[in-house]
């Protein structure tokens, strides 16, 4: 009965979404204030119904109702309760429900938090969001209903959640990622509403900025969580594989990054507005494209959902409607946008646009690299694979101008900057960065490579210029300390965000250039010397989990006869799906990770063991964490909290 109620709630939410799309537009067209104002109420109601539906599904998972097909395939009574809860979004149907749930969550947030905005603009935005929700509700209800039953014959127990997904990282990763994907719908809706209204001004940029930032924060965290999970869970020691699904999350992120920068220019200086709108459309469109790629099965990916052509066709139709429609609207309406600000070639505006251009070039690389295999096969040139070697090569080219400009950009004034004024400090900063790079490499690198030199230099270049900019800004009017305290949140956000990126670049450079991996054969009691460390295989224990059994290898790691860590790596068999899993053991550190994964037991009783030494790999996740924090600071900036100015004119 409960499952039917869940489905019914979903159907009501779908109808409310329909009303939310139609009614406000009708109100605006016929100038009926009540219809316009209904947008907010409809949005909140819609949210409540989908919340109900989501809670019902979660509850059904908790009570192990295996008469529901989705639960029978993705849960098991032996599964711990928290994994039963996270199993709600463990496969296609539930993850789509999560998607619509979050979409209406964002819509409701817009409805409730935009009291300062003119009601008519909010109504337009909510109507666009309603249209998006409507599409996804129909998708869930028509092709992927999580509430459908297995009656009259239902299994005694479920087929269990894929063991890969039984991890704390996978509890939080999808909701974070979806919050990001879906969050861009707000920026999208603001852009479409502005285009429909034919009025793109600084106020529009100002309104959409915190929303875009919020979505970007979630996406940043979601992607880095996914990367961290893959690293710690899969036993392959990597952190990014350039898999189509990973690329699908990277593309909206890049577009979103370009968007938050472009919005800043549009808000402050009123230029690049049509470019900003295009980015706002792109960020969400790329999220949709990602959904299509993951769920249609047109590409081969490790993360594939069980794909179904009917689902593929539905999303494709939706894609054409939403993206095609908005690009058409853009082509017609954006030509009316006039940009008013003037700036010279060497100015903050140009610098920001340059970085935008480089970001979009990177986006094009990822997009082409992901989709070209499809085209290649389609035009009869045969199947190809585009993977790590290609992406790494082209990204190590693109990162160079990007990082250099990123360092200079914040030092450059709006409108106009004389080159001679900056050349001297930049020269000194260059020398400082080179010195720091050499010092860094001498202390942490085992050998010299040009790529490492370049990468570390770029990292320090961004850090040095960043500190110099802070110093300049702080001492502009006050003493250094007082000046630093007086700096606005958004200024700190910029600095912190850029520092986070520098940390990321340093982490990537060190990990990619100086990682060491060895596959060895170790019997109990044996040791192996590895990169200044001595790994000793102490013994083996058997482990018994709620839904798995396994072996745990215990290794002690010594350096100069000092015990550094005791690592416990597991090899598990999940009982329901008979699936073997590796639980790698990691000794995480600020400058390096030591990583052990157990392979199989060999005929002579020894074990195949993989050992990694991963220098600075934590920085790869620490950097994005800083960037996300920077985003939070940005949203907390006074500007977005004070009483509204007369924004609309």
């Amino acid at each position: 009965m409960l499952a039917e109620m869940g489905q019914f709630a979903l159907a009501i939410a779908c109808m409310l979404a329909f009303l939310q799309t139609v009614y406000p537009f009708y109100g605006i067209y016929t100038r009926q204030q009540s219809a316009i104002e209904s947008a907010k109420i409809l949005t909140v109601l819609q949210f409540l119904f989908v919340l109900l539906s989501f809670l019902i599904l979660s509850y059904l998972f908790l009570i192990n109702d295996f008469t529901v097909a989705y639960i029978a395939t993705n849960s098991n009574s032996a599964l711990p309760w928290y994994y039963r809860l996270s199993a709600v979004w463990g496969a296609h149907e539930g993850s789509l429900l999560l998607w619509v749930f979050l979409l209406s969550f964002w819509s409701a947030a817009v409805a409730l938090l935009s009291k300062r905005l003119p009601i008519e603009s909010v109504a337009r935005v909510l109507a666009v969001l309603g249209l998006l929700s409507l599409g996804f509700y129909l998708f869930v209800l028509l092709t992927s209903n999580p509430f459908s039953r297995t009656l009259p014959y239902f299994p005694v127990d479920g087929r269990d959640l894929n063991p890969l997904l039984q991890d704390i990282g996978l509890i939080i990763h999808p909701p974070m990622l979806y919050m990001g994907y879906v969050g861009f719908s707000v920026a999208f809706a603001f852009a479409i509403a502005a285009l429909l209204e034919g009025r793109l001004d600084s106020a529009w940029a100002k309104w959409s900025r915190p929303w875009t930032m919020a979505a970007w924060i979630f996406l940043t965290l979601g992607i880095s969580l996914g990367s961290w999970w893959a690293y710690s869970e899969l036993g392959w020691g990597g952190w990014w594989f350039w898999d189509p699904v990973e690329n699908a999350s990277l593309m909206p992120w890049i577009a979103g990054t370009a968007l938050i920068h472009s919005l800043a220019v549009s808000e402050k200086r009123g230029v690049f507005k049509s470019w900003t709108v295009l980015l706002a459309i792109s960020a969400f469109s790329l999220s949709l494209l990602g959904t299509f790629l993951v769920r249609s099965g047109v590409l081969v990916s490790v993360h594939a959902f069980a794909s179904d052509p009917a689902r593929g066709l539905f999303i494709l139709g939706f894609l054409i409607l939403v993206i095609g429609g908005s690009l058409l609207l853009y082509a017609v309406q954006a030509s009316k946008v006039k940009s008013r600000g003037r700036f010279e070639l060497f100015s903050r505006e140009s610098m920001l646009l340059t970085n935008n251009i480089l970001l979009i070039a990177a986006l094009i690389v990822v997009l082409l690299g992901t989709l070209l295999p499809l085209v290649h096969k389609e035009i009869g040139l045969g199947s190809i694979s585009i993977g790590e070697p290609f992406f790494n090569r082209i990204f190590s080219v693109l990162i160079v101008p990007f990082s250099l400009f990123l360092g200079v950009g914040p030092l450059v004034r709006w409108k106009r900057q004389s080159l001679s004024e900056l050349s001297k400090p930049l020269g000194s900063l260059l020398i400082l960065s080179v010195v720091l790079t050499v010092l860094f490499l001498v202390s942490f690198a085992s050998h010299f490579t040009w790529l490492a030199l370049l990468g570390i230099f770029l990292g320090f270049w961004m850090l040095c210029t960043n500190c110099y900019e802070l110093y300049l800004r702080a001492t502009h009017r006050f003493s250094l300390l007082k000046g630093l305290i007086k700096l606005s949140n958004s200024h700190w956000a910029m600095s912190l965000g850029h520092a986070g990126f520098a940390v990321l670049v340093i982490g990537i450079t060190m990990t990619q250039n100086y990682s060491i991996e060895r596959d060895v054969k170790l019997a109990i009691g044996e040791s192996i010397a590895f990169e200044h460390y001595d790994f000793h295989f102490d013994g083996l224990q058997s482990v018994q989990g709620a839904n798995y059994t396994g072996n745990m290898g215990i290794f002690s790691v010594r350096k100069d006869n000092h015990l550094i860590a005791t690592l416990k790596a597991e090899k598990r068999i999940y009982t329901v799906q008979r699936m073997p899993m590796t639980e790698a053991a990691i000794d995480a550190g600020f400058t390096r990770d030591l990583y052990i994964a157990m392979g199989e037991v060999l005929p002579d009783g020894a074990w195949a063991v993989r050992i990694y030494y991963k220098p600075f790999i934590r920085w790869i996740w620490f950097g994005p964490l800083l960037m996300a924090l920077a985003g939070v600071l940005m949203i907390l900036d006074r500007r977005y909290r004070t009483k509204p100015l007369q924004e609309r004119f």
Partner: protein
Amino acid sequence: MANTRKKLFLSAPLVIFVIGIYFLAAPLFKGTDPRKLDSALVGQRVPSFTLQDLYNHEKQYDAAIFKGQKMLLNVWATWCPTCYAEHHFLNELAEQGVYIIGMNYKDERSKAIKWLTDLQDPYQISLFDKNGMLGLDLGVYGAPETYLIDSKGIIRYRHVGDLNKNNWQDTVLPRFNEME
């Protein structure tokens, strides 16, 4: 004038999108499976090899067996459930007079012989590729696979997955008839 140019410029994203969507839609409508690969050996001779007969380990074959008439080379194994599903149709084809050479791939001899005795043997010749040597040279990436080989011993097409009435009629037979 400037405005038209601007409009053209602003329609560029739409145009790119339309082109892109074609390539997303095409595989969906055609039902192309991205995991099915064309053989790299199409247009080339069957690689040279020496393999034992499945039934008689003293009897050896080489690439010469692929000459003289057009034929199918079917790669199969007893550990492959799809091969089981396909086997009945291969029997039918053999009854229709299609010349089929079987290659038992990475398998156990006794199991394979039992399989053929139980299920009927559609193969004119049965090769036994225990270590997957010919399989590797052919680029076999999963059983069952069926190669179309013409009378000169040149590979013309590879079908991945099970052969059945539908795909035989639709895709394989026309190609088979086309060959010399």
